[in-house]
């Protein structure tokens, strides 16, 4: 789809050399899912989130999570107005179309929980009043690798709220050269032109659901899910919700590649980012290697 290609090209101007990750991030948005970026500080997570907000002209807010943060700091708070004698809700940063939750694993589980609940329900209940969040609503959360000190590890049930987890990683040498030679990235982001309006994005999200997935493809997806459950290197297999997410992500991926039907390659492309953060190894080892090995053992076409 041309508009999507253009959007990708725009973001690619500020996040250099990370075409695959950009596509995944875009697919995650089109699939209506939230994105978790796991990286060391300074890898361009914020730039990516900001750039995405720009090209879709989304209302963008950023929250830096800290360990002394309270749920109200995200959701908002009721404030007494002496003039009118009533309580007014002061909306928190969650009332935005794209929320960048920076270093989400620095906050206490209570605060993490408040955000994740809002992500799942797409609404916030304060003082007994339920308010819907804006449409569209995306959360891009970033997380330091858990080996760092002073972090609260997100439990698996909450990781499941994120459709995808990606990492950007260090840039390639030539890309880094380009990066060093270039000007201020902040300016570059601000210069990005919106490509798709928020309403267009909502339509695209709706369109993703219509991308065709035939029985042969569903068979393949099911076999993959089944394989995670049968694999005794893993603590537990993927849930049906994860399966639905995988299919949705694959549809979005197909749409990005201008197809109205899903191919097994689409599933394989989104597979690591959808599956890895949901799976836990039983006794050490790399989940990435395990999910990859599943791709290499599960037959694409049964026979």
């Amino acid at each position, binding site marked *: 789809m041309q508009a999507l290609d253009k959007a990708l090209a725009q973001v690619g101007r500020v996040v250099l050399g990370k075409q695959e990750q950009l596509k995944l991030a875009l697919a995650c948005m089109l699939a209506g899912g939230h994105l978790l970026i796991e990286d060391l500080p300074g890898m361009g997570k914020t730039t990516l989130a900001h750039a995405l907000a720009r090209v879709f002209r989304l209302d963008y807010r950023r929250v830096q999570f800290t360990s002394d943060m309270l749920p109200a700091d995200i959701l908002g708070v009721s404030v007494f107005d002496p003039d009118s004698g009533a309580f007014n809700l002061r909306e928190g940063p969650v009332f935005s179309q794209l929320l960048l939750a920076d270093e989400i694993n620095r906050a206490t589980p209570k605060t993490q929980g408040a955000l994740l609940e809002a992500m799942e329900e797409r609404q916030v209940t304060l003082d007994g009043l339920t308010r819907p969040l804006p449409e569209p609503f995306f959360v891009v959360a970033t997380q330091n690798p858990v080996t760092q000190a002073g972090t609260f590890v997100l439990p698996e049930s909450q990781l499941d709220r994120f459709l995808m987890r990606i990492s950007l990683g260090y840039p390639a040498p030539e890309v880094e050269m380009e990066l060093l030679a270039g000007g201020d990235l902040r300016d570059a982001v601000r210069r990005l032109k919106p490509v798709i309006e928020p309403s267009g994005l909502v339509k695209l999200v709706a369109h993703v659901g219509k991308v*065709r997935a*035939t*029985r*042969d*493809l569903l068979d393949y997806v099911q076999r993959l899910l089944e394989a995670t459950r049968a694999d005794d290197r893993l603590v537990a297999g993927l849930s049906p919700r994860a399966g639905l997410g995988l299919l949705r992500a694959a549809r979005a991926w197909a749409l990005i590649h201008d197809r109205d*039907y*899903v*191919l*097994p*390659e689409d599933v*394989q492309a989104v597979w690591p980012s959808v599956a890895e953060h949901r799976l836990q190894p039983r006794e050490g080892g790399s989940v990435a290697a395990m999910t990859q090995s599943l*791709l*290499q*053992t*599960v*037959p*694409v*076409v*049964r*026979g």
Partner: protein
Amino acid sequence: MARIYQVPSHARLWLTLAIIAASLPQLSDGPWWQAVLLVVVLGWRALLDRQRLAQPGRLVRLGLLLATVGATFYSFGRLHGPEAGSALITSLFALKYLELVGKRDAYVLIVLGYFVCATILLFHRGPLAALYVVGCLTLLTASLAGINYSDTHARRRQHLTVASAMLLQALPLAVVLFVLVPRVAPLWNMQLDSGQARTGMSDSMSPGQVSRLTESSELAFRVQFQGTPPPPDQRYWRGLTYAYFDGTTWRQARPPGWSDADTFYDGRGPAPPWYRGLRAADRGPAWEYRVIMEPSQQRWLYALAVPFTDLDGQGLARDLRLVADNPVSGSYGYQVRSVPAAAEGLDLNGPERRLMLDLPDTGNRRARDLAASWRQRYRDDRELVQAALRYFREQPFHYTLEPPRLSGDTVDGFLFNTRRGFCEHYASSFTFLMRAAGIPARVVAGYQGGEPNGDYLQIRQYDAHAWTEVWLNGRWVRVDPTGAVAPERIELGLRGLVEGRADAGGDAVAGALGRLPVLFRVQQWMDYVDFNWQKWVLGYRQEDQRALIERLLGAFTPTRVALALLGAVLLVTAVLAVLVLARRRDAPARPLEREFARLRRGLARRGLNVADCHSAAALEAAAARRWPGAAGRAGHWRRYFEYLAYRRDGDPPAGELRQLRRRRRALMAGLKA
């Protein structure tokens, strides 16, 4: 209230039905309070499950238990024995349902249910009972499956399906075990006294004492002939003989001073002379048949005159009747060869002859006078017998099932006053007349006739009959005075008779037979099934098993039986395992999947092995790398495959599959190994 175990709601229905079904036969046979107890328990449990009622406390449960035990003792007079025991276990089974505290109790309850099902078979042995018990087992197994489903969304039907599948899988094993597990003679002999011991026969006969013959259509035994059966008027099934008459009652008797060996031979020890004599006279036509007795609780067996058997489980008495070693408490089958001519092998001398002529010293004066007058007129015994029969035929005798009662000289009373009676009266008075005339005679009791059904005869209680045997020309000759009075009784059987005669009081009989032809046919068909059930299942005895195993394995040795058993069980299990595992495998490959596999195999034959984790595109890429010239055709195939597999739902029509096949062949043709 303590936390108690709740039967999952989806399993509750099956458990309740299983309890009702397993208890029902006992309830219909047993005392009324059992039904009350079951209803109370089920009601309480239903309220308990809805948390409207608490679980009964320890005292209440103890009270219920004591009351149940007491009531059982009150109803049966004891707590042991088959009837009381199974009544007690059925009641306790119901009570157990009330005190499910943990899941373990539910298991105990269900296992107890299996046991209750087994007790049903103590009292009901027909094919329908077996079917019923299988139904109970299915329900119990369904409840067992149900309580093992923790999922609250489990579906009821699912449990029943699981249970049926399990029972079906167990069936071949059951058959193997039934056929091969060595059948040992029962270690104990259960005396079942209810419902089973009904027979028209007794060891004595007192004509005139019974004013109404109770005729029952209950089955006495069945006979399957090898070859054509004898005509109806030859079907006299001898059961016992009465030799001694005291003026009112005929009884079985043995010549004074004679021992067992003189009158009975059961195959053990050397054959006595009289048995050898019978065997020596074994010539001429014979009937061969198999009799399957219903339980009678008596030792008398029934057969046509001069029955020879293998004497295994039964013996032959000198008065030419078969006697079983043990009372017939279950269905019992035996093979007989009846040789009418063998009767000539016997003699009649000394005390035996005196016994067959013996009459009370006094009484029945007129009958004695009549006999004496015949004796004067006919020197020849044969003519005298004919004259006596003629007398019965010509005097106004009347066959009826409801004769007037007789007292005092019953023979005189019948012969000269009432002249109304049934077989007993005729046989008794005829035998009396013969003895009075100096001809040795005895009364024979048994059954006469039999109704064909399929390839066998059914002999029912209303076929019970009595007749006379007289000693003529050195052999016992059957004479049936009833036949002289009511020939149709012999030719048509009682059924024909009561249909023809309204005054015979046969309404009950006719009712029992069923006037509706369809009903009658169904009845007969059911009986046919029952017959084969008796013959093949209940009648499968140690000897049959031995014969079968000898035929199958060559010899009946423990090692062979054990090996055969092990082999058969393993075989059945293996077959089941294969079937089950085959079902568990994925559904068979669909056409597109087969086509894909063909291409992979084709590439492998040409030296390109691609793992099955390759998609169509990966396959194309691999082929194009190996054979750059074929890249176009590979893409051609891949695009069409993707089109069929991923762009359109459903299996592609035959035409498109052909198209795909053509593209695959085109691709393969250009490849070199």
